[in-house]
């Protein structure tokens, strides 16, 4: 039992700094071994929520690093998110339309970067241009000023197209911005939502391995 739990903890890389929010039942073997090993060996704090209608608020309040989520909760969250995206208007609708792309779930702990190398290069370009502009130009040189502004706008648009300007706020709104991994048997919409949020989704059976 401890060996199995140890393997689960190692796969998730649990440390004393982690905070585990347990929304699935302790009667589930993975939940139990994970929670207990977290408690016993890694020394993490396990947070037991009331769940149900309070689940979303608890997620916001706890800000967990590892979430053990009931599939129903993730599915209702995905449905709520899709409704909100569908009802967006104006600039928000434009940004969501460009930046929100349901993706296949990430099934390992290797979390992809939120900002692509292209956007980082553009940001560096903006910073360098601003320094250069501050050192060499004056407000009487509108062409250079427009050039720097154009690069800044380009960076913003690129980040929207790449998704980071859209994904990060959604993660914050859902209380998922600190989450390193979600353990759940969720599939379809909920799994695609986590993929789009760049949050690894680990299936309980893949964590259990052959220890059952």
């Amino acid at each position, binding site marked *: 039992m401890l060996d199995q739990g140890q393997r689960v903890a190692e796969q998730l890389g649990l440390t004393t700094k982690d905070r585990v929010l347990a929304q699935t039942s302790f*009667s589930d073997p993975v939940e139990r071994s994970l929670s207990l090993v977290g*408690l016993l060996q890694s020394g993490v704090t396990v947070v037991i929520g009331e769940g149900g209608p309070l689940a979303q608020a608890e997620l916001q309040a706890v800000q967990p690093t590892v979430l053990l989520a009931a599939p129903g909760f993730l599915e209702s969250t995905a449905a709520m998110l899709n409704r909100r995206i569908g009802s967006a208007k104006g600039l928000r609708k434009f940004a969501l339309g460009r930046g929100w792309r349901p993706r296949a779930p990430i099934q390992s702990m290797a979390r992809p970067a939120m900002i692509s190398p292209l956007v980082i290069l553009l940001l560096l370009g903006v910073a360098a241009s601003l320094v250069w502009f501050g050192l060499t130009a004056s407000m009487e040189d509108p062409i250079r000023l427009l050039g720097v502004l154009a690069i800044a706008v380009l960076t913003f648009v690129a980040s929207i197209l790449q998704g980071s300007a859209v994904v990060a706020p959604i993660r914050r709104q859902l209380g998922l911005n600190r989450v390193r991994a979600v353990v759940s048997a969720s599939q379809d919409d909920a799994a695609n939502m986590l993929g789009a949020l760049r949050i690894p989704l680990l299936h309980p059976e893949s964590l259990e391995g052959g220890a059952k």
Partner: protein
Amino acid sequence: MSTAPAIALQRATAQPQDVAVRLHDLGVWRPITWSVLMAEAAEIGSGFRSIGVQSGDVVGIVMTNHPTWVAAYLGIQGIGAVVAPIDPDLSSVQVATILESCGAKTVLCGDQEMFDKVDEEQQRGRCGAIQKLIIANTRGVRYFDNDDRADRDRILTVAQLRARGAIDGWKAEVPKVSPSDMQLSSVLFEPPINRCWIRVSVLRNS
């Protein structure tokens, strides 16, 4: 190699005031430290011993997530008994099937709803091996309306169980549990649930 209650005891000794579990209860976040958690585990574990639970006996837990769940889990393991955790959302028939399959003689129920599932099936003649029912939250349980009831030794509350417990006695028992002892009896329903296919898993401490 060690056991879960032994590791938990070490942690409670080394960092007694650290938060082990945080519970959201009626809108309030309640921190539970290692010392409090393990004191509850010791009282519950030794309480089970005082009502006749022996090493190797199976104790069912039908309860939603709660610090008492964790304390009971560690307490029961600390006396060498075997835990059979049961999903509280299962139907009474499924709960009874699991309890019968694992041969539980004692069952810890979270509240009235879970207690009724076990009690109803016992009234129907199932789960005959169960000798003791323990309830964590007695609100709404009709048995406790009458202090002179005949089954007062069969149905107990967790508070009564803890009052019978002896923390030092439990701590002395924990090192005697071997990592190779059976620690968990888990029965999982697999689809199709309506045919009651079940899979029995037995895990040892190590």
